[in-house]
């Protein structure tokens, strides 16, 4: 016979202490069930009963960014009874989430993927039993989570690209002279140019490149901080680099450019 049944038998027999313990056990169970089911068995109503206003304890999460996606692994808090916990993940470029906040749909899933190529946002999390009463937002980590860029390996071979620039790359040099490559924008030498990626336009500095190999094709790329130079196109096709243009330092036409002469710019529009 279970403890509860023995208490019932004892209470029916007139033991007030057992009756008290029995009723307290029922009350504890009711309270627990009310909390996770959103009902009230002791005080039922004919209308829809709202769930407990007590939110769940905070969940913990670990974030990792790679290949243009931030992956979040959420661990639910320990619970007395197994109830569904809903999570709301949001991210922003500022730590106090005062602007540029993107909120993902509420979900009970414990793994969340945020596609954010090239972004490094702060990520926060809050949880709820009912989707209405939430615990306090918590930053997943105190620093930004860098999603990284999507690598070529993750792209289909025939993926549509739309990258270009308004740079002119010219080379000049003659035997006995120091080879010179100039990178510049539409306003002429020593003025910056605009790089285009999709609909986004970015300013890039101008450059002078001295003493590179003579009589050799030179490919120029921007790595985000400085210019890189290679003698073949594949040398400047690193995933994080922007190809800028090609020049020959012997004065021959570089080919492929739209501005004529020795200037050329690299465009990838498939």
């Amino acid at each position, binding site marked *: 016979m279970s403890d509860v049944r023995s208490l019932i038998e004892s209470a029916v027999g007139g033991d007030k202490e057992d009756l008290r313990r029995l009723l307290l056990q029922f009350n504890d169970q009711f309270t627990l069930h009310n909390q996770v089911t959103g009902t009230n068995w002791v005080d039922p109503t004919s209308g829809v009963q709202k769930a407990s206003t007590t939110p769940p304890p905070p969940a913990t999460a670990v974030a990792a960014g790679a290949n243009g996606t931030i992956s979040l692994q959420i661990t639910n808090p320990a619970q007395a009874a197994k109830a569904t916990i809903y999570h709301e993940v949001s991210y922003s470029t500022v730590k106090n989430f005062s602007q540029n906040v993107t909120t993902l749909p509420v979900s009970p899933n414990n793994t969340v993927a945020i596609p954010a190529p090239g972004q490094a946002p702060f990520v926060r999390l809050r949880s709820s039993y009912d989707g209405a009463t939430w615990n306090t937002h918590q930053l997943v980590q105190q620093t930004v989570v860098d999603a990284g860029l999507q690598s070529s390996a993750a792209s289909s071979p025939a993926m549509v690209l739309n990258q270009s620039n308004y740079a002119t790359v010219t080379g000049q040099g003659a035997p006995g002279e*120091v080879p010179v490559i100039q990178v510049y924008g539409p306003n002429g*030498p*020593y*003025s910056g140019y605009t790089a285009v990626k999709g609909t986004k336009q970015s300013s890039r*500095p101008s450059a*002078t490149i001295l*003493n590179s*190999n003579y009589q*050799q094709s030179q490919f120029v790329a921007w790595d985000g901080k*400085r210019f890189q130079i290679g003698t073949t196109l594949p040398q400047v096709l690193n995933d994080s680099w922007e190809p800028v243009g090609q020049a020959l330092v012997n004065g021959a036409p570089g080919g492929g450019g739209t501005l004529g002469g020795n200037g050329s710019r690299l465009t990838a529009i498939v």
Partner: protein
Amino acid sequence: MAWELKQHDFDHTVGRHYAILHDPATGAEHHLVIFTSHSSCPTCGHVKRNDATGALDFKAILKEELANLEKSHAQSTAYARKFNIPVAKVDKK
């Protein structure tokens, strides 16, 4: 002169001297890359000494580059100054 040397460093792994010149008023930058390593034959790959490196004078190059930058931007700078037009900073995003 508005343009000045912002920073420069030498990358031993590729044998290149990188210098950034900038105009603090506009945030505009001009990069200077000087090869100092050995070059190789484009056909057979034979490595040969880059003879021009010894003749390079960074101070003279820097002076010339700064002068070229000033000259290149003088007309537009003068125009903005003449009519007291606020100068927009370069958006580096």
